[in-house]
């Protein structure tokens, strides 16, 4: 391969929003462990047959009946910027949803901006320029 092509490939890999190798709705827990190693923690959640597997401080996965359904990823570098994602999703038919909150909470409202065709959402707070989480799921 010519050096120029290698450079281009590296550039594409570096600049594009990384896509997960996990196939949500298909990847099993065994597949996930094979790829990520043993989880550091497993936590139950109030959904029947579901739990969360933690692989580091920055990555966790929701499991239902042995299948990975959602990934929760802490954004890194430029992916932390809300503007980056608004630009990334600009041609996608996005959906904006308010996250549920406690009735007495008076902090800024949190939102989920999702691009279903890409199978990714971002979580951000009203007024903030940085996002708190990338959520991955099966694309539609």
């Amino acid at each position: 391969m010519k050096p120029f092509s290698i450079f281009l490939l590296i550039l594409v890999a570096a600049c594009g929003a990384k896509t997960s190798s996990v196939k949500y709705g298909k990847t099993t827990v065994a597949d996930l462990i094979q790829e990520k190693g043993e989880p550091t923690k497993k936590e139950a959640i109030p959904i029947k047959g579901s739990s969360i597997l933690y692989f580091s401080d920055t990555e966790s996965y929701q499991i239902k009946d042995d299948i990975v359904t959602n990934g929760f990823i802490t954004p890194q570098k430029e992916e932390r910027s809300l503007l980056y994602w608004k630009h990334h999703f600009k041609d996608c038919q996005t959906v904006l949803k308010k996250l549920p909150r406690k009735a007495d909470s008076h902090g800024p409202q949190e939102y989920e901006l999702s691009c279903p065709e890409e199978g990714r959402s971002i979580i951000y707070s009203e007024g903030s320029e940085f996002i708190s989480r990338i959520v991955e799921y099966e694309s539609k």
Partner: protein
Amino acid sequence: MRASNLIVLVLLGTIGCTKKPEPKTLLSQWEKQIVFDSTVERKLASSTNNLCLNDIFTVETLKDEVRALESKYANSPRVEGYWKHLDLSRLAVPQANFLKKFGEAIGDRTNPDAIDYSRCYDVPCIFNKIYNKEEHVAGYVHYLWYLKFGHMLSADNEVPVHNKTPGIYNGKRFKLSDYLYADHELYSLWRLSLMLKAPHTTLSKMKEIQKIPRGEKFEPLAYKSSCGLAYSSGWILMTDDCIRIDEKNPDKGSFYWSLTHELNHQIDFQEGDLIYKAPYRSHQKDYLDVSGLTFVEYRNEAGEVVKEWKLKEGRKLVSSYAGTNAQENFAESLAIFRVEGDVSHSKMDKDHLTFVSRNYYQERFFDTSSQLKGWATATESESSKLALNVILDCSKNPSSGKSNYFQKSDFTNPPANQILNCLSYHASDIAERIRAKVMISEPESCQTFANKKYKEDFNQLLKAQLANSFQKYINELDKDKGYIARYQKFQKQLDNKNIGREAFIACYGEKEEQQCYEKEVALKISELANSLLLPESQIMEMSGQYLSRYPYYQTNNETFDYYQSFISSQQDLIFRQADDLWERCLQMSHNDIDPPQGTHFTIGEGYMISSLYNCINRQIPSYIQSVVRDLTIDRLKVEHPKEEVILTEQVRPEFNFRLQDHYIARKKNEYQEAVRVAKAELEITKKTLVSSFHWIKNALDLNKVTADCQIEATRLVNFQPLFHLKKDLFKGFAEYSCSKITESPEFKKWIEGSEDLLSGKLFKGLENNVLLLATAHAKTCVEKYPVDNLFTRIRYILKRDACLFDEWPKIEARVIEDALKDPVITKFKVSRSELEDSLSSSRAELQRQVTKEQFKGFTNFLF
């Protein structure tokens, strides 16, 4: 002195002798121009009574404070321009800066000319006109708030974020006075301004604190039960519930806790943003660890992302609300820590208390016992200086009035009776004066001293402190008669804050900043002490004294405070450079191809076309560097590399503030322009949309037809926004253009035509394609298994048929694959199985047709 300390000192002394002189700092140059003023000293001179803070809450006190704070700007470059009738160049620089920054956002926003400011020549007067009062505390409290915090304590009738129509809230009309503060509330604001230091006073992204009309709840339904709100875009909104003060004792009330809580949210936002590039500082691992909070995040059965917060077993919560989430825990813990110190000590874990104290309160604690010790320590240097004068006076003239303030047992080496009486007489007076000073300078002291036990505890601390000072001087005098004279010279150096500041700047950004600062101070003190021939045994004690007077966190705060004031005095220069960058980048041709990069300049939740955003972010560092390098005081430019780093950090928020102002203004204009374009292009867009339906990607789902239509309508608008996403800006336009499009006659006509196309052309076409491929393949079968005579026709009949029929599924599959690429098939979302069903139903007929034509009909009888 421990031997190890002595070695460090000797080492430091050696380094001190050989190292190059530090470059000069702008700060020390600037400080030379400032005349210090002390309100407290003046008050003390005129009062012998035990006054409390509330007793000195007068225009005169506030004016003195304004004067002291404005003195920092005495030689700063004047600000050009006008605000109404006022020539800004004739105003004190911070007043001019205030009017330049907030001048359009004060007073009656329904009618900027409703208030006659023509007789005002300063900012306090302007605020007092808004209050419809003359020479009142209100004007000074508002202006002092700006001087101390850098943002505006609003006095206007527009509630940002919630309702942009001035004078209207919750659908009701209100008078301007409904948005203003009562006198006891103004006192509390002033008192709080004395209680808080950095980082509360250095919130560079804060814009305004706005009170909503008296008696009202917040307008948005979600916040009806809240008393205060903090927005990361720099606003704090407060209801009456948040500014409750005990009218009998204005030092008490929920106000102190509430506003501190909201300011803590701003610290959380700002540190998250500037340090961690995250929405909240409180969500960082170190805070979660000390607060004991953890969370689990998942998608619930309703498809919502849920974040559930939990408290680790055995950990404390400062209040039940602090368990809501990390950001409320942060705001609540820091507020209660400051305002209810005793409560925080019982309701916060030790590592949490230490973390909060170290990072947000200059290593101070506010429980009563710590406060009493803190107040005593803060006066140590002054009491030591006064004690020295007393020693000198009493050694010359020991006769005085009688006093039994001290007993012999208070000293390890007691002086002679006459001297002891003299010291007692003066010490009692010193203690009284110091306590009086503490009462008007420490906001919580009056309340504390109302408790007799605490008052007595404090008196005992002062007494021990004074006895200790006297004893030290007596001991040294016994050994060396010239000691006092040299020590007095050194005492003068103790007043020199520059030693600490220079040490702080030299250590800025070092790994162990505090340790470095303490070493640097020790080094500088030892240089001074050596020149005064003071005994080596006292050098450590002296640097200890200096450090107790100017501890690291205090110097840190004061230094930044000075830099902030200095930068604020240079606001005009910074704004000019920011304007230049904005215009240059704006004038380029723009596109939204590259991803936005860089976070020097950010725009909150908004949008900006990437070429403009990237241009600004690429060039900001060099612009700020050029601003910093252009800063001069008496022709001195920045020389000290660490000072350049500090100044760069201080200039950035001001620079960004100006850029954000441009962004907000341009965004507003762009929105108005888009409304105009949308109106002009609505009809033509509607016509274009129904003239051709090529834009439909899915004709079978009418909702998706509408969605496709909205995408096309947005694309058709001839307008390239720079400060909005086009799809957001023209959302309403697209919705309106496409409403009921699926009920339009044009769409119905098109869909009928398309259905004919689908059933006729498409399915017939599929069969034709199968026939074509099958005929071609049948010919190859005939070549292998000829039909040139009756014998071969009969001999190969089975093989020939097998040759064709075995290939049939592959032929159909190829035809279906090709068909799925057809835009009509895509548009009508015809599935693979539908196509397979269609070909399956015609398969036998097609096979019969091919064999009949290609195998000359001899096979017929075999079926």
